């Protein structure tokens, strides 16, 4: 869980207290988050060269730790100062300026270094973070699926039994008719009854059948109509073609770039925010710059025309939703609502985004109160009672979302 929280947050302050120090005076868990948010776009923790050098064993190469601090905070200043190692690196990597990180504290950089060290030694499995993420998610989308499955099995079983009963009954009737027709002592009335044939045409004309068909038709149409009306405005499965064939599968899945690297305000604000072109250019100024899709980026920047992405997730009108409440405070993984985004070539709306869906989750999900003093009072009140769900503390009240 700790790993998950660290991986999901971009709040450096918070991350610092998340786990005990791993080695070298830095906190590897916090460092991992920082690394993924800030460094992973250009550097690997291994030997691999992405844009800049792989950082494995970086401390053995650089002059000293202070140099690292200076370099990370403002590399161009280091180069300008005529620093020998700095210029050597600069020239080696195509004279590409490393982005400056003036916001990072020395302690943050220590954490990142600790992470790099631990990553080099432990080499964590690629899926660990994700697995943790799913374990940590408290919503339970599978529950309802299970009960429908049972229902279907029982229904099918019942139908099979019914069919068998019908078969047996028909067999009995046939046997009986055969037996009776061989009897010679039957009266004329009985024989008439025996030789009576069902007139299908007449049966279809009968009021009962007509009525039944009509009722079934009306019910069926009603059901179809109602279903389609209830689906108005629900765009589940909506996966429009985007102006640039951006692949989440590649970026988030394969390269494991943290969601917040591009969606910068997902932990801070209401909107997760669609990344601006300059964020793309952090990497794509060098990576794959001949691809026709990435050329579109350049064109946009040259023409000073922002990229008009198609909005996939459209919340119903008059509803207020804030990402940070769910991601930052609630600690939910993006996948809870957006599905397996890291496997999507084209983004698709997975959740129905209906009010029922929201309320359902608010009823089931426990409040993430851990380490949050805001909830201390409420936790104390609810300590002896049932688990504190979002709904328990007013999470399904109207003006939590409508105002």
């Amino acid at each position, binding site marked *: 869980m700790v790993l998950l929280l660290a991986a999901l947050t971009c709040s450096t302050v918070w991350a610092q207290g998340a786990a005990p120090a791993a080695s070298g005076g830095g906190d590897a868990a916090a460092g991992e988050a920082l690394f993924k948010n800030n460094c992973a776009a250009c550097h690997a923790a291994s030997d691999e060269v992405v844009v800049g050098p792989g950082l494995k064993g970086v401390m053995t190469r650089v002059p000293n730790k202070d140099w690292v601090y200076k370099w990370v905070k403002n590399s161009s200043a280091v180069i300008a100062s005529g620093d020998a190692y700095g210029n050597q690196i600069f020239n080696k990597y195509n004279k590409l300026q490393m982005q400056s990180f003036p916001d990072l504290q020395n302690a943050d950089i220590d954490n990142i270094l600790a992470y790099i060290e631990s990553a080099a030694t432990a080499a964590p499995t690629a899926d660990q973070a994700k697995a943790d993420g799913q374990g940590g998610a408290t919503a339970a989308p599978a529950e309802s699926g299970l009960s429908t499955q049972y229902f279907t099995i029982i229904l099918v079983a019942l139908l099979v039994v019914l069919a068998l009963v019908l078969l047996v009954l028909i067999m009995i009737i046939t046997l009986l008719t055969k037996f009776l027709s061989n009897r010679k002592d039957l009266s004329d009335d009985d024989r008439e009854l025996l030789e009576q044939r069902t007139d299908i045409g007449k049966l279809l004309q009968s009021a009962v059948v007509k009525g039944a068909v009509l009722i079934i038709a009306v019910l069926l149409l009603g059901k179809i109509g109602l279903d389609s*009306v209830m689906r*108005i405005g629900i765009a589940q499965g909506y996966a429009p073609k985007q102006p640039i064939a951006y692949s989440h599968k590649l970026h988030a899945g394969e390269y494991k770039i943290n969601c917040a690297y591009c969606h910068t305000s997902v932990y801070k604000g209401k909107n997760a925010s669609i990344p601006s072109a*300059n964020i793309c250019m952090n990497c794509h100024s060098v990576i794959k710059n001949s691809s026709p899709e990435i050329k579109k980026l350049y064109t946009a*920047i040259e023409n000073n025309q922002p990229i*008009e992405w198609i*909005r996939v997730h459209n919340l119903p009108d008059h509803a207020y939703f804030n990402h940070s409440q769910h991601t930052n405070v609630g600690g939910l993984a993006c996948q809870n609502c957006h599905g397996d985004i890291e496997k999507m070539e084209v983004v698709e709306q997975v959740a129905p985004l209906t009010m029922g869906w929201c309320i359902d989750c608010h009823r089931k999900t426990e409040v993430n109160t851990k380490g949050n*003093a805001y909830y201390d009072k409420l936790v104390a009140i609810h300590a002896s009672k049932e688990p504190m769900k979002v709904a328990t*503390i*007013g999470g399904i009240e109207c003006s939590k979302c*409508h105002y």
Partner: protein
Amino acid sequence: MEGNNKVYWKGLEELSNDIHFVKNAEREFPEGTPLPGTEAAANADIMPASRRDFLKVMGFGMAAVTLAACEAPVKKAIPYLNKPEEIEASIANYYASTYVDTDGDYNSVLVKTREGRPIKIEPNPLSGVTPAGTSARAQASLLSLYDLERLKGPFNGKEKKATDWKSVDAAIGQQLQQVASSGKAIRIVSSTIISPSTKAAIKEFIAKYPTAQHVTYDANSSAGILNANQTSFGKAVLPFYNFDKAEVIVGIGNADFLGTSPGSTTYSALYAKTRKLGKDKKKMSRHYQFESTLSSTGANADYRTPIKSSQEGLVAANLYNKIAKKLGAAPVSAPALDVKGLDDAANELASAKSAGVVVAGSNDPNVQTIVNAINNLLGSYNTIIDLNAPLTLKAGDDTAMANFAKELSQGQVGAVFFYNANPVYDYPTGKQFGEDLKKASLKVSFSDRMDETTSLCDYVCPDHNFLEAWNDAEPRTGYFSLGQPTINPIFQTRAAQQSLLAWAGNTVEYDKFIQSYWRTNLFSLQSKYSSFKEFWIHVLHDGVFEPKNAPVAAVSFAGDVNAAAAAVGKAGNNGIELVLYQKIGIGNGAMANNPWLQELPDPISRACWDNYLTVSHKMASELGLTQSEEDGNDLVTVEIPGKPAITLPALIQPGQAEGTVGLALGYGREKAGKAANNVGVNAYPFASVSALGVGYVVNGVKVTKAGEKRKIAQVQTHHTIMARPIVQEAKLSEYQKKANAGRFMPKVATSEGKKKATDISLWHGHKYQNHSWGMVIDLNSCTGCGSCVVACTVENNVPVVGRQEVINRREMHWLRIDRYYSSDAPKDDVKALEEASANPEVVFQPMLCQHCNNAPCETVCPVLATTHSSEGLNQMTYNRCFGTRYCANNCPYKVRRFNWFNYTNDERFSDVNYMSQTDLGKMVLNPDVTVRTRGVMEKCSMCVQRIQEGKLNAKKERRRPVDGEIAMACESACSTGAILFGDMNDPESRISKLIAEETEGRMFQVLEEINTRPQVSYLTKIRNKA
């Protein structure tokens, strides 16, 4: 049962039990009142819904559903190309800036921007001048930014076509050279400029063109006091009054320091400090007011005496004599005049000495000189009155302006520039001025719109809106503030200073110019920052720079009080006097095209979208004038010798002095824009221009009944109080004896004897485990200024409905300030009540959703659209509401407003509310609050969006919300601190402490007897009366 036996009424209709008033009082909603002039109104009788209509509607409905079922429209998500570092979508940024208008209203403000567009104005707590609250106009100024009437770029008035800056500069530069070489005068005409850098820019311009001069005038002139202070103290300044140090305050004439006078935001805060009461403070200031029209300040006074405006000088002179007698100074010779309360005022001033202050609103330097003499006698200079750090908000020179008008008419002026000035509209001889303007060969205006003066100009070089521009200000000597752009210029406008600098041959950017001015002149006044860059960054962040000034020597009075007294003694007293006053919202009319201000009801008359002649009850009955909600008000014709007569509705105004009539300035605009044009009549031509300056009191006015009637959009009588004790008040002496004096403590008879209403309940009540949001409103601090009303409108996207809809009783304000008149006269003594209505006591009561715990609205909603939250809020869910209006019918506070029209799109409202119907105007909307459509009920949500935001911020930082962190829009706009919001579950919050202190004291809940148990409480009004 305790409580007072006062009679309260909201309007004369209620007092006189007007039949229509009684009828409407029973009806919450005016049914079937279509908008006149619309098809619906014309067809109202002949258009019953037919079967065909039904089928049509049904057919359309089905088609709509079918269409809706098709693929939803594609929505785009367009990010920045290059995201600015400081902007995160959905997170507001605040920038410190400065609001100054042409009417002497200054506010240091924080501008809230979302995704780069300003959406709200908040006070700047770092300011030493206006640390709390803003004026109503500052709140509303936001909308002027998004006004489509603004010019889109430079305009060539000669050829009547838009042009570009390059050709404008070339043309003006060339013509300026011609004028300069011909030796003709160049004049820059402006209202008061408080920006030191702007003055420096003008100076630079004047240096380049030596025949140039700067003429300053104010539409609402304060030249009288400036001149008086020049002769009395050698300083032509507006004194700064430290009202917080005053024990006795006497206002004479239109001394509206709580309303329309310059510095009113500051003064309201200081004044309110002396009116706050509590366990440890049982004293408050006493306030006398002698005035003709009932002003906001007069309404807040403990004793108010109506006097004729021509008597102001005599009242001052007599006051002087009475005090002089007490203090042993020589009296002046003036005819004795005794008005009610003058003796008391004199006695108290004489005993308060330097803790007393007299303020006059007159523009007559003689009156001001006598008042200066009184204050000098009392010794209140340098205790209360500060002449060493005076206000600079009015510096208009009436003489200079009169001279300029003369020069213009004589054809001596070659070029004239108008900056923040519109003399054709607001100068008394404006019409003539407009004619004479043709004699100048070059006329340039910096106005942002084609106003009355600008439309006569050769070139228009539109200035930025203040939210787009760099500027600085010095509202009070030694108190500096900066204005910075909060949005890129929307149109092709340019700062006026930039234009002047350009024509002076200086190509420096104006922001750099300001910086260099500050570097040379202000940087050295501090020692905290060693580098200018550091200093500048900090000042820009704070918005203000207030270096401590060394105390300057005390002033000595050198005025000739005898001469002044002799001059005022001669004042004529003939016939009816017309008093020109200002309304708190519209002011001098420069911002008249702001629908928010037009819709803001006047605090006293509660009328909006109009000006009218205020007449006393006695005069009304003499002239046979009547008014009723159903038929409207009688029109009257006002005739002044030598001026064209005007016809306008008359409003019977309690408190109006006998023999006077009042008329508000700032109306009757012709070229301000759709919302303001032809609203009311222009009163400026009635002002007089004499050697004493501009006079706002006109003698010998003839008022006759014109015969027809016109309705005035007045909200005062829309919700009656049914004679219930809504307002609770006491006298200070009673309060000092007993903290809960004046409280109405209802008891309900039960089988077990009498019980408190709150002890019996049908419901189990709510338990709030987390927060319990509540509000306490101090009736003693509220001055009725209306700033909260506008703030609420801005914050909550409240629509503007216009005059006709207000008449239809469909105003949408979530928060209103009820104004009650009251009198001690016994309820059944009709005669005494009528007398009392001539000069009633006034109390203001902000009324908003009370968030009842036993909410009557919640129980009657058939669709659960209004429910109760676990934090004490009464929630209104618009998507659920389908408009039965049961809730509003059942609301005892009448705070629920029904949305009758789609105000933001309905073209019938495109005149009153056109800004909200344009893409540009919609940028002002608060993106966190739903824009309601027609057919739903709405009401105060207790700014739930702010509560949610504050809670989320706390959660994100893993802590509890700090008290004061979440502020309501109305609360933060209030300069007097009358509104206090907080978490009543937090024992450390200010509201909890206040409630603990006042529960047995001044705190009451409105209509406690019906046991609605509101979350909103009030503190009783205390009057400092004997």
